[in-house]
């Protein structure tokens, strides 16, 4: 069961952080825009240079190669990018897992990327990420472009995935109700530091 550890981990705009996210645990992050939430997630995924170290399932980030780390610690950026023409160019196999869970039929694999709505892109990006079975999820506002119904599907899928796989989840969300719903622990970023968020 993978847990995610940060050791004196420092990304741009934040003070060093020590944090453990247990197996199957979901923590949420919130804070004003520009406070460094997205940069923290990018640094944990090791896409940006940073100070300190991290570990997943006992494996140190500094001990394994970049792509090995990123296949274990999956980042879902706020904006998804696509390189092929069709949906199927980005997903493995004839029937990728979780397609139905987010309301897509098998015929959607032949859809043109250029014609996807922003909500469809966001859901397909999550399916694409989960297909690689990462042990930790770093989610940057995964329901920002979604309506209530599809948003609930995404919340349900992430919840099932982390329980079944025991994945550690860090979830950036602007919606206080969503944070209260999905988080085991919640943090706010204030003055370059993480503080516990409480619900009154």
């Amino acid at each position: 069961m993978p847990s995610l550890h940060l050791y004196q981990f420092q990304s741009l705009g934040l003070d060093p952080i020590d944090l453990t996210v247990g197996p199957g645990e979901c923590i949420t992050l919130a804070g004003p825009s520009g406070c460094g939430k997205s940069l923290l997630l990018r640094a944990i995924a090791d896409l940006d240079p940073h100070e300190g170290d991290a570990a997943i399932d006992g494996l140190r980030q500094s001990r394994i190669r970049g792509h090995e780390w990123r296949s274990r610690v999956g980042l879902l950026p706020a904006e998804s990018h696509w390189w092929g023409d069709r949906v199927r160019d980005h997903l493995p196999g004839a029937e990728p897992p979780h397609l139905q869970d987010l309301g897509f039929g098998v015929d959607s694999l032949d859809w043109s990327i250029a014609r996807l709505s922003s909500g469809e892109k966001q859901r397909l990006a999550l399916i694409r990420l989960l297909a690689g079975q990462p042990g930790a999820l770093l989610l940057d506002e995964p329901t920002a472009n979604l309506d209530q119904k599809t948003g609930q599907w995404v919340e349900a899928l992430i919840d099932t995935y982390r329980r079944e796989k025991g994945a550690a989840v860090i979830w950036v969300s602007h919606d206080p109700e969503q944070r209260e719903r999905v988080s085991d622990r919640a943090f706010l970023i204030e003055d370059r530091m993480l503080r516990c968020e409480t619900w009154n």
Partner: protein
Amino acid sequence: MELIQLSPWDLSIAALLVLALAAISWRLHLGIEGRLLIATVRSVLQLMLIGLVLKALFAQSNPLLIGAVTLFMLSMAGYEVMARQQRRFKGLWGMGIGTLSMFISSFSITLLALHVVVQVEPWYTPQYLIPLLGMLLGNTMTGMAIALDNLTQQAWQRRGAIEAKLTLGWNWDNAIRDIRRDALRAGLIPIINAMGAAGVVSLPGMMTGQILAGSPPMDAAKYQIMILMLIAGGTGLGATFAVWLGSRRLFDKRERLRLDRLR
């Protein structure tokens, strides 16, 4: 047949054409008359100068002097490759990637041609070495500049897609593969086109020169065939190396895309 000497008078007739073009540019507000005149003056000065240098070089055949001239040619070509990049690498890499690639491709292929193909004695005979190397450098330079420019521009434009692949756990090599392939293809197109058009559309410079100097056309054709093939080989080798080196430099040890290494 003796080569007919060109007098300063003959050259000034040709120069009138350039002046006419500059006048047209000025009249039509094309805004290139300044650059045109500077380029013309540059080419006159540079060619007269290289004429003098080669005259001295051919008279002495001093290996050290010949080496110095080849290195000068190489560094000028490296600078040209760098200057044609819209987003070049910062620091020494900006000039280093192109220069190193051209050194490896052009020098090795020139040596191969002199030793194995032409078998001139000694191999550094400047009458063969300098023009051969010059032609190889000039042509591989174009291919390499296009390939490198394509690589860095595409990496910049498609950074989102590259990083998307990285976040899914792809290694750097796979993440940049399609961009590298496109860049290499773009770099090789000019020489492929030149070979396709040779003899039908254009009589290449070397062959023209040899025919003007009185060589039998068949001999001139054979030399030109050799040169085209050497250029194709040199461009392919150099561009492959440059694009590989450049794409490697776009990522750091942790396989992060580092566009901050471009200016």
